[in-house]
């Protein structure tokens, strides 16, 4: 599809780098659809995301942005189409392996009861790895949580919890990060902090990312490209500016 080849750089964190056209495709959705009880949540979305590219997913609430992201992580099963990860149909991968490689940060942190360190160790332990202490410290430092290892997650603020959630996902060393409005449940100050943190982490880890956001300014700051989803369909795929101009303003 010509629409998907049309990747351009926006004003995002990789601004200055050249077009992604020559890069390898990491995530490709092909005619991805999901129907639940006759209702089309995601309708025939085809999209390519290149290595290191950050794509903002925008659109009205209830448009299917989260449903689309959940399909890429295979938290829900597509009823049509599929997703290719590094050129391989993801149904050929064990779902648990897929999810380690394609990490997801949700709107709320959903931490497990226990300490911050225990939360960080959860992912690696699922595939039989012990996260070394140095690695825990490194992740905490990266996410601005120095000294938090033994803190009980119950006593964390919303912003701190979301940092732990991000660090917990990064502990799996994912190649792709799916971000489902990771700052929308936070107050303004925590939101800006997490956003700055995300930009740093995405750059440092050379991560490919899809990020659902309803904050147009945030999309402009972070993303290289944007897609607009309405009623489950991919309406527009282009530069952040282009997409934001087309989208009805929500603010």
């Amino acid at each position: 599809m010509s629409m998907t080849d049309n990747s351009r750089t926006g004003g995002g964190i990789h601004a200055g780098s050249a077009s992604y056209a020559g890069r390898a495709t990491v995530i490709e959705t092909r005619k991805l659809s999901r129907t639940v009880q006759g209702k089309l949540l995601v309708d025939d979305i085809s999209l390519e995301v290149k290595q290191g590219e950050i794509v903002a997913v925008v659109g009205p609430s209830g448009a299917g942005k989260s449903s689309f992201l959940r399909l890429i992580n295979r938290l829900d099963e597509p009823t049509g189409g599929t997703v290719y990860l590094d050129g391989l149909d993801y149904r050929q991968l064990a779902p648990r392996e897929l999810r380690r490689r394609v990490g997801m940060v949700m709107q709320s942190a959903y931490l497990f009861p226990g300490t911050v360190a225990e939360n960080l160790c959860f992912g690696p332990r699922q595939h039989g790895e012990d996260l070394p202490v140095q690695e825990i410290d490194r992740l905490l430092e990266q996410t601005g949580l120095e000294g938090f290892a033994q803190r009980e997650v119950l006593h964390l603020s919303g912003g701190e919890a979301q940092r732990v959630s991000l660090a917990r996902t990064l502990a799996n060393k994912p190649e792709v990060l799916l971000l489902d409005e990771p700052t929308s449940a936070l107050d303004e100050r925590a939101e800006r902090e997490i956003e700055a943190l995300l930009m740093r982490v995405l750059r440092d880890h050379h991560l490919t990312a899809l990020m659902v956001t309803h904050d147009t300014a945030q999309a402009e700051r972070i993303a290289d490209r944007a897609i607009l989803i309405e009623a489950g369909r991919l309406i527009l795929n282009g530069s952040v500016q282009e997409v934001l101009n087309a989208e009805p303003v929500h603010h």
Partner: protein
Amino acid sequence: MLNQFITDPMVLRAAQAAGAAILALMVAYLARRADINMQREAIVSLVRGISQIVIVGLLLTIVLGRARWLSAFVLLAMTLAGAAIAARRTKQIPGILQVTMRSIVLGAGLVIGIMVGLEVIDRSPATLIPVGSMIIANAMNTTALALDRFRAEVEAHTGQIEAGLALGAASTVVVAPYLKAAVQAGMIPSVNNLRSLGIVWIPGVMAGMVLAGTDPIEAAIYQFVVVAMLFATAGTTALLCTLFVRSHAFSAAEQLTLRMKA
């Protein structure tokens, strides 16, 4: 008091039933004054209760002393009814009837089978049906309690469950704490019964045997046997139903596919 006026035993029993029903209705009336509306349910349940138990009494008079396959048939019918009732208690979980059915058939069936095999339960319908029915009823209550707890836990922790799955965990791992809570919840009444046996509670079997003139020590020991069987039933059924509901809740691709109905 009643027996001073009524000499016919059947009429006496009917009068006693009426007295108990009036008491229950008075409670429902008092509850209504406290804005807890249970009058309708109380009346319906009372009418249902008396009809059901009298019908069973009639059935028992027919079955007692006849072929053994008849008692197996009665127990099977009770199991199916129990599965349907437990499923209605947790009707928010779509397709739960197959879970309650398998749990109660297997859980109660296993305990009844072993106990009959060891001749702890006598094969005569007069023993097999009442004791079997207690085991089935206990399996039903355990299943309903455990599944209801499972539903509540999953509803409250959908985010954690999916966060765990998204981190590459197996469904068995992410759901383990909630299954444990469900098993415990299902077993609470049976554990309490075992603990309080004799202290706060002289259960029906012993009461019945003593009333019928059995030596109280013998009745007490048999009562322990029954309560221990009920405990075993609760444990088996709670484990079975949580295992079944787990595979019911997740797909082969480690997705939480369970979506509760309102």
